[in-house]
């Protein structure tokens, strides 16, 4: 069998008509052998699954570690597939930080050596549920985000005790900024009376719980799922009965459904950012977790009722 196959292959390779194909083969081989390897950085890395997690890491490490974000800026983490470079980064990282609660679809397939250096930040947090599913957007509760920051701090200190003082200072600064942020939001929230906010997908449950407003949503937990008839009917009913003037959709997801419902009810459409990822341009403009969170809060405050 094998001999036959080899003979056939030889015949195949020597046949004149197949010069073209041999050419392709050679080209592919050339591809195989060339190409530059990703440069071996000497700086130790921390890999974070997506934006808010990476932001925590960079706030606390300062310049000591390079922080890599697996989900590229501006992509939606729910729909993310790993590339070889991503897996290579996971492999080489000193520490892997994840949110957990199903935000990382690839979580279960990590190799044992990767799992060993992984910290799942949502572990042990008090989570909320929506329609019987655990809501993974824990980073939108400023108190929980602070707890996640503490885990990151402890994790980084445990792998690099030498610079513990730097991390302690950075962590203290982070806590102070979070207290400022919470103060800002609480002040705005103090004027909320029976506040209802209509959103495209139920990403803002934690924010709603912390600052005392109600979240009316079209889709529960997947941003781009097809909404059911009843969900649309319910939200239109609620919008008109409660006098809601703005329907929010989230950046990175489709605004189609929000627009349709806005048109049906005469409400405006505006965007909220659930902070799952920031665009490259936003980051370059100096936007970060704190500033976007404030902006969200301002927008919610402006919407009626």
């Amino acid at each position: 069998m094998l001999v036959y196959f080899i003979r056939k292959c030889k015949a195949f390779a020597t046949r004149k008509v197949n010069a073209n194909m041999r050419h392709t083969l050679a080209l592919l081989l050339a591809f195989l052998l060339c190409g530059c390897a990703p440069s071996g950085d000497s700086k130790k890395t921390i890999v974070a699954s997506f934006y808010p997690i990476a932001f925590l890491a960079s706030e606390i490490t300062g310049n000591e570690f390079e922080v890599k974000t697996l989900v590229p800026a501006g992509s939606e983490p729910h729909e993310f597939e790993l590339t070889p470079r991503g897996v290579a980064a996971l492999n080489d990282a000193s520490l892997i930080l994840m949110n957990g609660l199903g935000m990382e679809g690839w979580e279960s397939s990590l190799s044992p050596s990767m799992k060993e250096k992984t910290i799942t930040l949502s572990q042990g947090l008090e989570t909320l549920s929506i329609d019987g599913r655990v809501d993974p957007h824990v980073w939108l509760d400023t108190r929980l985000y602070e707890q996640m920051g503490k885990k990151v701090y402890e994790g980084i200190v445990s792998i690099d005790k030498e610079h513990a003082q730097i991390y302690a200072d950075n962590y203290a600064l982070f806590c102070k900024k979070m207290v400022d942020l919470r103060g800002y939001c609480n002040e705005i929230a103090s004027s909320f009376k029976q506040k209802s906010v209509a959103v495209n997908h139920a990403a803002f449950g934690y924010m709603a719980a912390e600052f005392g407003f109600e979240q009316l949503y079209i889709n529960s937990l997947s941003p781009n799922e097809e909404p059911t008839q009843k969900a649309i009917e319910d939200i239109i009913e609620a919008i008109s009965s409660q006098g809601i003037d703005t329907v929010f959709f989230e950046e990175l997801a489709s605004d189609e459904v929000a627009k349709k419902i806005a048109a049906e009810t005469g409400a405006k459409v505006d965007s909220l950012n659930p902070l799952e990822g920031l665009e490259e341009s936003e980051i370059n403009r100096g936007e970060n977790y704190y500033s976007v969170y404030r902006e969200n809060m301002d927008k919610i405050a402006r919407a009626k009722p």
Partner: protein
Amino acid sequence: MLKSWKGGITMFRYEFMVIAFVVALLLGLTFPLLGGTVVYKKLSSSGDALAHSALAGVAIGLVSGLQALYMSIVCCVISFLLIGLLRRKFGKHAEIGVVVVLSAAIAVTGILSGYASSGNFESYLFGSILLISYDELYVVIALAAISIFFFFFTYHRQMACLYSEEEAKIARVPVRLLDFLHSLLFALTVAIGAKIVGSLVVSSMLVLPTAAALLLKKGYRMTCIISVIVSLISMSSGIVLSYYLDWKPGATSVGVAVVILLFFLLYRGVSRALLRHKRLNAPVSDQ
């Protein structure tokens, strides 16, 4: 040249890349061996239908609390047998059976997904070739071994069936049994393949290599051989290219297969044109 050699080697610095490469080669061998028959039977889209059935299986598994992967395998087998049954019912329009099963699977998945307790249940099914555990590697090795054994053991009988089922029956080829075994193996490949490398890769790579090989019109045996070679090149170069270009490996493999297919198409067009040109210009005595 030496430097570029090094560049080629660095990707194998990582164990996960080595495993991905091995799995790509094994599946690259398995897919066309099982997918060929399906293409010849004009059921090319059944891979796609089965991948959706597998997803329906996962939904059923999550709602009923049974093991998701086993349910997806069971669903795949049932679906493929159903496709076979419908194919006989619809006669000439065999592909209708595929569409019926595909639609049913999508409907079941869509309805049940509302009841599943876990949000992104796709992650139960759609894997990535880059994150393969040792257990999954063994499964792939076993699957490849069984498929290769099945292919060579039934090679002539399958060819007879494809030529004419009636004549094969007269020649005492167990047509139904062969069909059933192939269905079983095919469904298993789709369910396991989707779990390990993703459904896009499975449904495309079952068909594209054979489709490309068919373009060259070299007869059954050569078509099989060429399809295996095309499949191996696509799968392995998909892994390599995706590493250097930072693309998604599954999509890259499929992309390479499509490019090869287009290349064959072009090649056929050019060689035909050349042949015609030659015939026109050849002296009469040569004809």
